[in-house]
């Protein structure tokens, strides 16, 4: 590529390859080579041009405006017709005023402030969500909520029955671990039979509810957030709103009811399997007879202990459903927003479960149950 002065102006001669994989000459270099006080015509010759793509168009597009600013008249005739068409197309629609956004860099203070605002917003949104949810619940109680029974059954199956294997596995393992650690210590006093008390009470009051809740937070809470988040992305939730159907009634209530109904059942199931796991260790490793172990468990664990666990699991169920559904409904409109919503749902649910558990344990202690 070279340029040569002529009697009535400049001629820019292009040759060779001007594609993505070629090296292009620098524009600044060329601009500097132009005779300085130059007024006249710039023409092009592209007879030797062997190949071009949009890189060539871009190169020209950035070259021409500074030339025109200097008062040089640019004659496009020498360019391939395709290039002329594209150049015209690219300059045809002017930039819409005010559309461009610059990348903004924020200071530390602004970032901190923004985070605090976001936290406050989150708190407000949570309260709003709970308020609306209570209204929907009220409408359901007076029988005016639009909710499909078939949805409820589907969620009961997904949240309850389908979770049985994984809950069983975890509960048995937790029972095994508790029994093993406990029995090793108790053995030093020759009191390994009390491992039955330890496992029974721990599972019934604490671990059964806790383990079931953590599994369900990861399994179902995340699923709720992802389902509702995707519906938000596809404008499905907006479609419910414009049809006058409250998404909270139609989408959130059945999920929440199903999970709240299933959690206590899963909790009792986990309690029993955990106790079985403990028994397995007691029988095989510490030579306690099955009947003795059972007797000891029955004597140690009262119905009240199970009651405490069941009440806890009810609360956990509500917390998981609220966290999952709220994050899903509040989700942004992109694929990564769905990911964020799912993550927040699980984190929020697990934190809420542990905090609620601590509070409820204190209350149970104060009440003497």
């Amino acid at each position, binding site marked *: 590529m070279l340029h040569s002065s002529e009697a009535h102006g400049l001629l820019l001669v292009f040759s060779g390859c001007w594609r993505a*994989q070629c090296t292009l000459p620098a524009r600044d270099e060329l601009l500097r080579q132009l005779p300085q006080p130059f007024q006249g015509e710039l023409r092009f010759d592209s007879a030797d041009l062997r190949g071009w793509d949009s890189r060539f168009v871009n190169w020209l597009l950035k070259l021409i405006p500074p030339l025109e600013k200097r008062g040089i008249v640019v004659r496009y005739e020498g360019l391939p017709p*395709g*290039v002329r068409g594209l150049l015209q*197309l690219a300059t045809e629609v002017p930039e819409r005023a005010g*559309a*461009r956004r610059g990348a903004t860099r924020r200071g530390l203070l602004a970032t901190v402030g923004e985070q605090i605002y976001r936290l406050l917003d989150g708190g407000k949104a949570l309260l709003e969500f709970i308020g609306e949810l209570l209204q929907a619940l009220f409408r359901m109680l007076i029988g005016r909520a639009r909710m499909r029974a078939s949805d409820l059954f589907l969620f009961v199956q997904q949240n309850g029955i389908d979770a049985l294997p994984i809950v069983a596995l975890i509960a048995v393992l937790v029972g095994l671990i508790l029994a093993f650690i406990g029995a090793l210590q108790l053995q030093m006093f020759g009191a390994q039979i009390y491992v039955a008390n330890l496992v029974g009470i721990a599972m019934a009051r604490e671990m059964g509810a806790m383990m079931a809740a953590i599994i369900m937070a990861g399994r179902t809470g995340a699923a709720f957030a992802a389902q509702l988040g995707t519906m938000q992305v596809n404008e499905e939730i907006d479609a419910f709103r414009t049809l006058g159907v409250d998404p909270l009634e139609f989408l959130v209530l059945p999920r929440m009811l199903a999970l709240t109904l299933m959690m206590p059942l899963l909790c009792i199931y986990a309690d029993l399997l955990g106790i079985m796991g403990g028994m397995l260790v007691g029988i095989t490793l510490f030579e306690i007879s099955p009947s003795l172990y059972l007797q000891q468990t029955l004597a140690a664990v009262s119905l009240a202990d199970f009651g405490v666990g069941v009440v806890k699991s009810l609360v956990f169920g509500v917390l998981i459903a609220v966290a999952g559904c709220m994050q899903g409904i509040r989700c*942004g409109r992109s694929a990564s927003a769905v990911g964020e919503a799912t993550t927040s749902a699980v984190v929020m649910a697990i934190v809420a479960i542990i905090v609620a558990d601590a509070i409820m344990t204190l209350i149970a202690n104060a009440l003497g149950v």
Partner: protein
Amino acid sequence: MTQPSAKIEVRALTMAYGDFVIQRDLNFRIEQGDIFIIMGGSGCGKSTLLRHLVGLKSPAKGEVLFDGASFWEAEEPRQRAMQQRMGVLYQSGALWSSMTLAENIALPLGEYTQLARAEIDELVSLKLALVGLAGFEAYYPSEISGGMRKRAGLARAMALDPEVLFFDEPSAGLDPVSARLLDELILQLRDSLGATVVVVTHELASMFAIGNNSIFLDPESKTQIAGGDPARLLRESRDPRVIRFLTRGERTEWESRSDG
């Protein structure tokens, strides 16, 4: 005698989802520089045919030839190279929602070329300017209108200066003026880039305005029942199904017109 190989050639193609046959025995050629229209009623398999042409779905039977070479018999690296020479605008836009428009278009450029960051940014701006979206680089797909998303999808489809551009209902959801501008844009791009264009469309106006070859798929008989220049098809076809479609149901029979 062997004909020179077409840009895209389809031979005895049968398309099916599992056992459910969508269309069978499709045969057609798309020549370099054609604007080829795929038409037919809703649900007859146009989008499915497009997925076969761009190599997203393998044929139940038959062949798809790209520049004379069978796509499905080629090795994987060859298939990739073929796909790089195609650009697709999907029916729903299919922009990546977690990236800005600029990032959407820059991604293929960064993946498949060795250009410097600054030049990629310039090329991205050029592509957006070509579709009339100059200045919208930093917007996310959720922040622009449906029609703008279509155009942004077109800009992404053009990112690598493809030889063949596929459009799935480009003008659906656009106002009539924008739809016409898009048609003109397609024509201009074909003329400037020398690209071959395959369009699925229901818009009669745009079909007649831009198409120079076509195929008509029929859902009942599950095969192609007509083809050729859409305008000629309207003048000469005697098939009531084709006439109904091309006259929006106003006519079902061929009318001989002696004005020529």
